[in-house]
């Protein structure tokens, strides 16, 4: 009998939050990032290092090889242009004979950046750890 008289409080439904605006915002953000992002895979080669500036020194224990970089991008040793394979072999032999071998690279101003980087690449792969690019400053 008591059960029949009990009044049940009406259940209040919670506020309904629509997901549609959120989806709209997320889609707009997604499209924005997809359109504006440029995916570049870039590396770097140090040109000036803080510690190099502090500790520049001569190479008393190692051999020094001076390589000129011709305007056409070919490495030149003692006036003779070298093919990339011959250049790599020469450096490998020098480093094998003396691991402290220092390579000085004197590039022509007309050579391209790619040719300098390629020569530096060859030297690094040959095991040269002491590579220095000589920059000749213009006469004032």
């Amino acid at each position, binding site marked *: 009998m008591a059960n029949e008289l009990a009044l049940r409080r009406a259940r209040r439904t919670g506020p309904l939050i629509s997901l549609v605006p959120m989806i709209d915002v*997320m889609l707009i953000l997604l499209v924005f990032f997809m359109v504006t992002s440029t995916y570049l895979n870039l590396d770097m*080669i140090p040109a000036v290092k803080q510690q190099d500036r502090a500790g520049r020194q001569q190479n008393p224990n190692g051999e020094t090889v001076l390589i000129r970089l011709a305007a056409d991008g070919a490495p030149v040793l003692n006036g003779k242009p070298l093919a990339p394979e011959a250049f790599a072999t020469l450096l490998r032999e020098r480093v094998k004979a003396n691991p402290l071998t220092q390579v000085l690279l004197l590039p022509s*101003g007309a050579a391209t950046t*790619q040719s300098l*980087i390629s020569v530096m*690449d060859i030297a690094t*792969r040959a095991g040269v750890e002491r590579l220095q690019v000589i920059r000749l400053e213009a006469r004032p």
Partner: protein
Amino acid sequence: MKLNRPTRNTQSETMIALIDVVFFLLVFFMLIGRMDATAPFEVSPPLASSGQDMPAGGATLAVAQDGSLAMDSVSIERSELEGLITGALAADRDLRLQINAHRDAELRHVLPLVGLAETLGVGDVVLVVTPETRQAGP
């Protein structure tokens, strides 16, 4: 006797899956994308197989094939460069200057920039390169 087929509420399930996918894509693009200034001219960095990973940040000096310059996506004249580097150094003593030179740019346009930055006191100058994937030899 007529039986009513119960209505299936499939729309909300589809929406949740869509939200999940969109959210994953959004987070992916936000994490992978890096906001960097691009040069106002075409710059294709040289290919190199011995480059190091480049951390984010620093000032970027772009050099076009003809030697034109841009600092952080703004075209500049050579005469403005010294003041800009000095100003950037005043703001950040540990400034890293990234020289993003076109692979066909002549070194007479590029190397003096390295010398100028070093003279002005920039302790960290790097050349930007594109990693070259090489197949391992036998």
